[in-house]
């Protein structure tokens, strides 16, 4: 009995020599803070898409928690309170369209927790982001269901059920549509933005931009604030950036990954993005592509996951550049959605190599000196 209590005490108290640094940070605290920072974007999605979006979120989070409990029973370690399962479920739900059948988010969450996370040893040992792998599994398994966007109840007027990025891809497939910016292509293809967007853009153009000889395209406001169709959590860039700002302020997210990711994607999209649409060099419409799809959500909340991103600063820069290039190629030349999910999963696979390579490079001068 006494031996058992001694063993428990030694497990609870780690005795090490000074100096000691006391911090309140823990994996669980970080997970819960990341989940909290995603809530504004989730609330916006639920407000726009209604009860079906809420059901998708509840099912994905519920399935994730149930899977965590099952794996806890199997591996005999209780990890439900570390918040990672809740965060994984929330991310899976946010990356689903609101019209998806409920078995899809349930299966994606279960795959994320049971296969990607727990099979490799649990939190901290997974080699790819569980939520992103779960979403990719759903995209590959039920591509039709993952394109079921559902109806949106717009605040500023009607919202077209097809997301702008998907509509743009469909419009660009027609050979006669060339030589125009993304929003102009959408307008030419008959894509309808809300009445509120038309009023606001008309006001901005006439009052603010007319003296400067500039004008905004119709749809700019809707795309900027996220008053469009899409996946539940990806549409509102301002609310996602608000949450990302909080995480950056609390130093939960390292800024190198999202900055290098977004910058490299912007540069590539600006330089080469117009070539496919016949607009030539330096005419890619990068802002539209950054605001559309799950790029911001992926860059700040998923790609910067400390478990699946490189350890060194240099590694994080390279990783971000790699992500930007992969997303650009996948989005402009691929067929798997907006390219973010595939890019992050592929880039996750290269992280151990990056870590090992940079570790050897950084250790080499020390070895030579010794």
């Amino acid at each position, binding site marked *: 009995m006494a031996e058992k209590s001694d063993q428990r005490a030694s497990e609870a108290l780690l005795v090490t020599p000074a100096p000691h640094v006391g911090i309140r940070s823990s994996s669980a605290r970080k997970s819960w803070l990341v989940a909290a920072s995603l809530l504004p974007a989730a609330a916006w999605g639920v407000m726009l898409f209604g009860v079906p979006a809420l059901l998708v979120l509840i099912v994905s989070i519920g399935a994730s928690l149930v899977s965590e409990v099952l794996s806890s029973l199997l591996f005999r370690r209780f990890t439900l309170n570390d918040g990672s399962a809740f965060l994984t479920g929330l991310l899976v739900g946010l990356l689903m369209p609101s019209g998806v059948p409920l078995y899809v988010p349930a299966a994606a969450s279960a795959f994320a927790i049971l296969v990607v996370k727990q099979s490799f040893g649990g939190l901290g040992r997974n080699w790819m982001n569980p939520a992103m792998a779960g979403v990719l599994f759903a995209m590959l398994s*039920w591509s039709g269901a993952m394109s079921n966007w559902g109806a949106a109840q717009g605040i500023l007027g009607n919202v077209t059920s097809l997301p702008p990025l998907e509509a743009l891809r469909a419009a660009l497939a027609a050979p006669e549509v060339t030589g125009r910016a993304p929003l102009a292509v959408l307008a030419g293809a008959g894509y309808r933005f809300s009445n509120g967007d038309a009023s606001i853009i008309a006001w901005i153009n006439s009052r603010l931009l007319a003296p400067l000889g500039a004008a905004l395209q119709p749809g700019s406001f809707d795309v900027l604030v996220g008053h469009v169709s899409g996946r539940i959590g990806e549409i509102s860039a301002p609310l996602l950036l608000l949450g990302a700002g909080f995480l950056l302020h609390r130093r939960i997210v390292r800024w190198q990954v999202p900055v290098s990711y977004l910058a490299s994607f912007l540069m590539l999209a600006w330089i080469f993005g117009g070539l496919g649409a016949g607009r030539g060099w330096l005419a890619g419409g990068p802002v539209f592509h950054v605001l559309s799809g799950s790029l911001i959500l992926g860059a700040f909340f998923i790609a910067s996951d400390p478990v699946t991103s490189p350890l060194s600063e240099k590694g994080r820069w390279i990783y971000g550049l790699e992500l930007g290039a992969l997303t650009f190629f996948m989005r402009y030349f691929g067929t798997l959605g907006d390219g973010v999910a595939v890019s992050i999963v592929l880039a996750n696979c290269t992280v151990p190599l990056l870590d090992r390579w940079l570790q050897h490079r950084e250790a080499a001068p020390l070895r030579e000196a010794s």
Partner: protein
Amino acid sequence: MALDAGLGKRIAGEHRISMLLLGLCPAVAVSVRVIDALWMSAGVFSVALLAALCGALVRRWGRSGEGAAAGATVGKWMGALALSSCLTACFEVVLLAVAPEASASLGIYAPLIAVNCLVLGSAGTGARDSSITRAVLDAAEQGLGFSACLLLIALLRESLGAGTITLFAVDGFNGVIAIPSLARDPARALGASGAGLLCLGYLGASARLLRWRGEGREKELSP
């Protein structure tokens, strides 16, 4: 010689696909449908068994003659390869005559039966210094292990990835069993080759777990 006490364990836990990840190419390729896995299993089992038997007989015959010294290891394995290839060619011809659809479905992977047999070591068993019974039993164990592993992977992949289980067609039955809830919306990603590797990973882990529990955890952890 009696059957080995660890026969079940060797069939379930020590076969080379899941434990050593050998013979992966045909294992992943033909495990998309249960019927393809059945044909491949039948081919590997029969060729492995016959190769082991013939190899052991030739070795016994060779030892009795003056050319026993010529039975160098390389020569024995070359002979085993030639023997497996001949038997595989025979199996291909028989399969083409009996079940041309299965032959077309197995395609390039049918000739790889010879490679599988070498990987399983069954052909070489006959070339090693062991009795005919031992050689045949070894080949049967490895063939059963391969078949069990392949069928399990195929069953998982086809049922979850396509929502069906494809078996032999008989009168009035087309051979396809549709699983009610899965046939409409199967998880198609599990039919991909990556899912085959995933299944192999779980099989390997399960086999190691069984072995670990059998031998005792302390022994496994000791350096």
